[in-house]
């Protein structure tokens, strides 16, 4: 898929672990891990909102489009 999830980079910048983020966002570790590795088909707006709030970033910081 040409859309790459940059969640790992944002988490590393904020020095936040997967468990910590999952707890803040209210997702399971497995789901968040799948999202991080690009295994998910989509993201709900409410999930994106929670991630942006937890990481203090914009939705555009989380995704990148590459041909």
């Amino acid at each position: 898929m040409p859309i790459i999830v940059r969640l790992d980079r944002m988490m590393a910048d904020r020095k936040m672990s997967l468990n910590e983020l999952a707890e803040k966002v209210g997702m399971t570790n497995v789901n968040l891990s799948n999202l991080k590795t690009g295994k998910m088909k989509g993201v709900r707006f409410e999930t994106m909102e929670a991630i942006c709030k937890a990481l203090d970033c914009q939705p555009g910081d989380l995704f990148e489009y590459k041909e």
Partner: protein
Amino acid sequence: MKFTNAEEGSKEYRSMIRWCSTFATIIVCILLLMSKDFFTDLLSDKHSYEVKLVKEETLGNGQDAYRLFKDGYEIRDVDYNEYFSLDDNGNTDFKYCALVNDAGNLTFSIILGIMLILVIMIISSTAKGTPFTNENVKRIRAISILQLLLGILPGIVKLLMRFFKFSYYSGHFEMGSLYMFIIAFIIGMIAMVFNYGVKLQEDSDSIA
């Protein structure tokens, strides 16, 4: 099924599983009891069977009726054409005719029992989470096929049993069987809808 908290959900789930298991056990016990009576009658020669014409004065409904008696006790109304079939020696066998009828009823009950157990399995798996699973689709398909068999198998069992004993045998198509075929078709459609539901569920699960 939605629960307000995990503990309540778990309690409700355990209670439902317990009820489902109890119900399934009762069905299996009833089926075993029915089979036991049938096989005891089949293997023993202790009981005497006879068919008598009961006059309308006794019945009071304006019609004479043939009734089956086992050891002198009245069991049920019978169809004259089914119970007076003759074998190669020109004899009737009321016990065999009663067993043919019981075999048909037993086949019907066994299929119905399996269907009920499948329904209980669906309810039980739904209590765990979503009903849209591949297992449930297979179960609903199985129920559809069993419903189809419910319409034809008891008749085939009776026909085959008569075929082996009597020189004259017949089978007839009942309107009830047609209803069962239609119901089987509807259940098959429900299985297809569930199959689509499974795909939607998988899609929903793969969205974070």
